[in-house]
C-alpha cells in the first residue's frame, strides 16, 4: 500500500470519518502499530477536549493551547456549544458525546456522540450558542453539531441491554454494544 498520506494525516481523516474500506483498515493498523499515529490521535482528542471542557484547561500550557486554537478559529464559523449542562461526573469531560465544532480546521474531534441531523417539528430553540468571549450569534440548526445528553445516554444503554434482539449479536453485535457502552450510572 502506497504511503499516500502520512500517518498524522491518516489520523485526521480517520477522525473526520472520511475513510472507507482499505484506507480505514490502514488507519486502524496505524493506530495500533505506530506510536506516532497514536500520539497524533491523542493530541487531536486533547485539542477537542480542552476546547470544550473548562475542567481540562487547567494548566498554563493548556490555556495557551486553547487561546491559540481560539485565535485560529476566530474568523471561522461559530463554535457550537451546549447551554448550561447538568452536573456531571468528573470523567465525563473526556468521554461521552462531545460537542464538535462544525469547522474542519481544528483537526480531529473524534468523539463518540450524537450528531444532530435535524430539528424536525418544533421552532428551533437556541441550543447552540457562541463560545465565551465573542458576541452572541446563533448557528443554524443544520450545522453538523454533536450534543451530549446524559438522559439519551441512559436510554441508549437501556436500548442496548434489552433491545439487543439480533441474529448479529454473536459475537459482533454484543461486542459492539459492550465496546460502545455509555458509562456512569
Amino acid at each position, binding site marked *: 500500500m502506497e504511503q499516500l498520506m502520512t500517518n498524522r494525516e491518516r489520523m485526521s481523516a*480517520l*477522525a*473526520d*470519518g472520511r475513510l*472507507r*474500506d482499505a484506507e*480505514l483498515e490502514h488507519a*486502524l493498523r496505524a*493506530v*495500533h502499530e505506530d506510536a506516532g499515529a497514536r500520539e497524533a490521535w491523542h493530541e487531536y482528542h486533547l485539542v477537542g477536549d480542552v476546547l470544550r471542557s473548562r475542567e481540562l484547561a487547567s494548566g498554563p500550557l493548556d490555556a495557551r493551547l486553547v487561546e491559540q486554537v481560539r485565535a485560529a478559529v476566530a474568523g471561522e464559523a461559530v463554535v457550537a456549544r451546549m447551554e448550561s449542562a447538568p452536573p456531571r*461526573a468528573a*470523567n465525563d469531560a473526556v*468521554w461521552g458525546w462531545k460537542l464538535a465544532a462544525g469547522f474542519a480546521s481544528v483537526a*480531529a474531534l*473524534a*468523539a*463518540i*456522540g*450524537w*450528531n*444532530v*441531523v*435535524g*430539528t*424536525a*417539528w*418544533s421552532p*428551533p*430553540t437556541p441550543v447552540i450558542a457562541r463560545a465565551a468571549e465573542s458576541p452572541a450569534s446563533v448557528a443554524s440548526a443544520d450545522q453538523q453539531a*454533536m*450534543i451530549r445528553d446524559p*438522559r*439519551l445516554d441512559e*436510554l*441508549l444503554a*437501556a*436500548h442496548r*441491554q*434489552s*433491545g*439487543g*434482539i*439480533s*441474529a*448479529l*449479536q*454473536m*459475537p*459482533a*453485535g*454484543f*461486542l*459492539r454494544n*459492550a*465496546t*460502545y*457502552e455509555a*458509562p*456512569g*450510572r
Partner: protein
Amino acid sequence: MHWIRAHLGRAALALAAVFGTCCATAQVAPSEVQGARVERPVGEWLMRMHEASRLRNYVGTFVVLSAQGGMSSSRIWHACDGDMQIERVEALTGPARSTFRRNDEVVTFLPISRVAVMERRESLAMFPGLLQSKDNAIAEFYSARVVGADRVAGFDAEVVQIAPKDGLRFGYRIWSDRKTGLALKLQTLDAEGAVLEQAAFSELQLDAPVRLDRLAQMMGNTDGYRVERPELQRTTAAAEGWSLKTAVAGFKPMSCFRRPAGSPEGTVQWIFSDGLAAVSLFVEPYDRQRHAQERLLAMGATNTLTRRLGDWWLTAVGEVPLSTLKTFAQNLERRR
C-alpha cells in the same frame, strides 16, 4: 491445558455432527471451496457465524468506528466449553469498564464508581431460537450473497452482503472467516451503501489458550464493588395504554418494560425487532422543562428521534433509518 483442548475437540465434533444433519445444505469441506464462492441462504450464514463463536476460544482487539468519526475499542477474551460461553470485554477507550458475559448473564464492572451491575439479558438467549422459529422475518426481509474475498486481522474471509428488501432497514456487510465462519468484521450500510458503522477485530488469535475457569473467577469476584441488580418490570404495551395503528413491516413487538421498575411516573420501553435490527420506543410523561427540543440524531448505526405526542414524550432509538423511526412515531397511539 490439554484436557480443555481435547474436551473442546470432542464437543466440536459432536456439535458438527448434529449441525451437519440439521442443516438443509451440507457443510462443504474447506479444501473444496478454496477459491470457489459458496452461496448460502441468509439464515444459514447467520447460523454459521453464531456457531463459530460458540465453538472456539479466541482473544482479540475489537474496534468500533462510526461514520461521524467516533472510535472505541476493547480487548476480548472468549472461552467456551460445551454449552457454556464466557466472554470478557475490557474497554480500551473511554472510562474503564469490564463486561463479562456467561451465556445470558452479564456483569459490568465500573471501577470508577466501584459498582458491579449484574443482569440477565434474555435477549442474548433468544438466538438461535430467532432463526429457527417459523415466523422469523429475516429471510423475508433480507437476502445474502457473497460479494468478494478479503483478509481481516490476518484471516481469509468471505465478504457476505446482507441486503434489505425494503427501505425500512439497513444492510450489512459481514467478513466471515472462510474456515470457521466467525464474523471478523461487520459493517452497517445505509440505503446508498455508505458505511454508517464498522465493528471489527483489528487483531485476533483463534483457538487461544483462554482459561474458562479463570474468566469465571474474575466474573464472580466482586470484592470492593457495590453490586447492583437492576430489576426489570415486565409489562405489555396494551396494559400501558399504547398500540401501533399500523404495524411497521417486518418489525414484531418483542417485549415491554417499565423503567425503573415499580415507578408509575417512569418510562415505558416498547421493543421491536425484525431479527437483525431492534427499535426501542421510550415513552414518558411530557415535561416542558426537560423536553424542550424535538430532534433527529445519529450515532454510528443508531438513530434517535424525540417527539412530543400530546401529554407524552417519545424517544425512539434503533439501528434503522430515521424514516423508519418516523413511521413508528406516526403510528404510535394512545389507547386510553
